[in-house]
């Protein structure tokens, strides 16, 4: 009964997926939800050029998400398509990491989240270029070029703000405090990531962890920011257990399709 309340038209919802679809959806959801968050800055950026930068990054991420959703829809078959996957799945079906759904906070927090995620995505896509799944490898190679820009841009901003004024430094310290406990999940493999890594389509995440730490340490050192101590890490997003924030994102993002099913523009 509860399920029916969530999905009023069950015929439109794709059938339950195997680990391959789950993995591709996870890659897509990460990109889409961060894109949606970054897009909230549209028209609100601190200066025009940076408003354009963050929304450009948002656009790149939507493009990556579309490529992954189209591929997942193709595997699922039937009348499944990218829009159904983005607009007609409920909160528990989304497989993105908690980090990407967190509120934007101030500019510093948005920048730091982008830096953490771009560093991760850069390392992940670098490896995924070697995926035995040709389509995943192609999307990764294509996206990597864009992520390179995102990583450079966000790294420079972390340094600029960390090493800027007393206030910008304080704000970055607060951002680290708010976000750090969500970074551990990036490297905590879900069952579908383990299965994908085992059959050569995915990546063994523990291999990325050292390089991620190294990059973050290097940029933090240059930014005059302390490398955080070990904390308890929040997890669950990859398997559909989200923070209270995701529901609100979906409510806004999916509103049109829910209220006017199959509407197009």
């Amino acid at each position: 009964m509860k399920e029916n309340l969530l999905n009023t038209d069950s015929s439109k919802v794709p059938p339950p997926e195997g680990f391959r679809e789950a993995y591709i959806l996870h890659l897509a959801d990460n990109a889409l939800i961060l894109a949606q968050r970054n897009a909230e800055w549209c028209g609100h950026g601190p200066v025009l050029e940076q408003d354009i930068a963050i929304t450009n990054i948002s656009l790149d991420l939507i493009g990556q998400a579309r490529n992954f959703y189209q591929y997942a829809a193709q595997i699922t078959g039937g009348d499944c398509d990218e829009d159904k996957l983005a607009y007609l799945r409920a909160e528990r079906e989304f497989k993105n990491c908690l980090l990407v759904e967190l509120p934007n906070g101030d500019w510093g927090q948005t920048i730091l989240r982008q830096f953490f995620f771009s560093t991760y995505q850069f390392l992940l896509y670098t490896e995924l270029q070697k995926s035995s799944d040709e389509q995943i490898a192609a999307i990764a190679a294509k996206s990597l070029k864009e992520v390179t820009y995102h990583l450079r841009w966000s790294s420079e901003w972390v340094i600029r703000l960390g090493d800027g004024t007393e206030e910008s430094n304080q704000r970055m310290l607060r951002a680290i405090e708010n976000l750090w406990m969500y970074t551990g999940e990036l490297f905590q493999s879900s069952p579908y990531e383990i299965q994908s890594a085992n059959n050569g389509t995915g990546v063994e995440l523990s291999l990325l962890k050292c390089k991620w730490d190294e990059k973050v340490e290097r940029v933090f050192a240059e930014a005059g920011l302390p490398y955080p101590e070990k904390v308890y890490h929040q997890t669950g997003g990859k398997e559909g257990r989200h923070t209270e924030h995701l529901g609100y994102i979906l409510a806004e993002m999916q509103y049109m399709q829910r209220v006017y099913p199959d509407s197009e523009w």
Partner: protein
Amino acid sequence: MDPEVPALSVIDLGIIRDILIHENEIEISITPTYSGCPAMDVISMNIKMELLANGFNNVKITTALSPAWTTDWMTEEGKQKLKEYGIAPPNPKQQVCHTDLFVPDEAVQCPLCNSYHTHRVSEFGSTPCKSLYQCNDCKEPFDYFKCH
């Protein structure tokens, strides 16, 4: 034509990867410039409309992601057209496509007065493929089609 950069044809841009002529169908394989480029859907539709208008009824447009598009595939003629249109064409070598920080700006030539004495205003510009520059000599701001 690229709707965002009307000076360029799809051939100039280097996004047509293959044209296959089957028995009674033409298949055109295109590759996106940037993953999220909103112009791609329009480009794909325009190609189809153009061919239909020329009497080709059975047209199929497919997308090929690999190998990933690079500005090195842009034709020399295309680069010339870009410059005439007022957009600085991409530099031939991928000078800045790495993650090193605070690298000096690329030497980008002003498409208006040809000076190399220019600076980058923003790495991200009006479309995903461009960044914003300004000429220090003639003071004009201009778009640079960034290397990719």
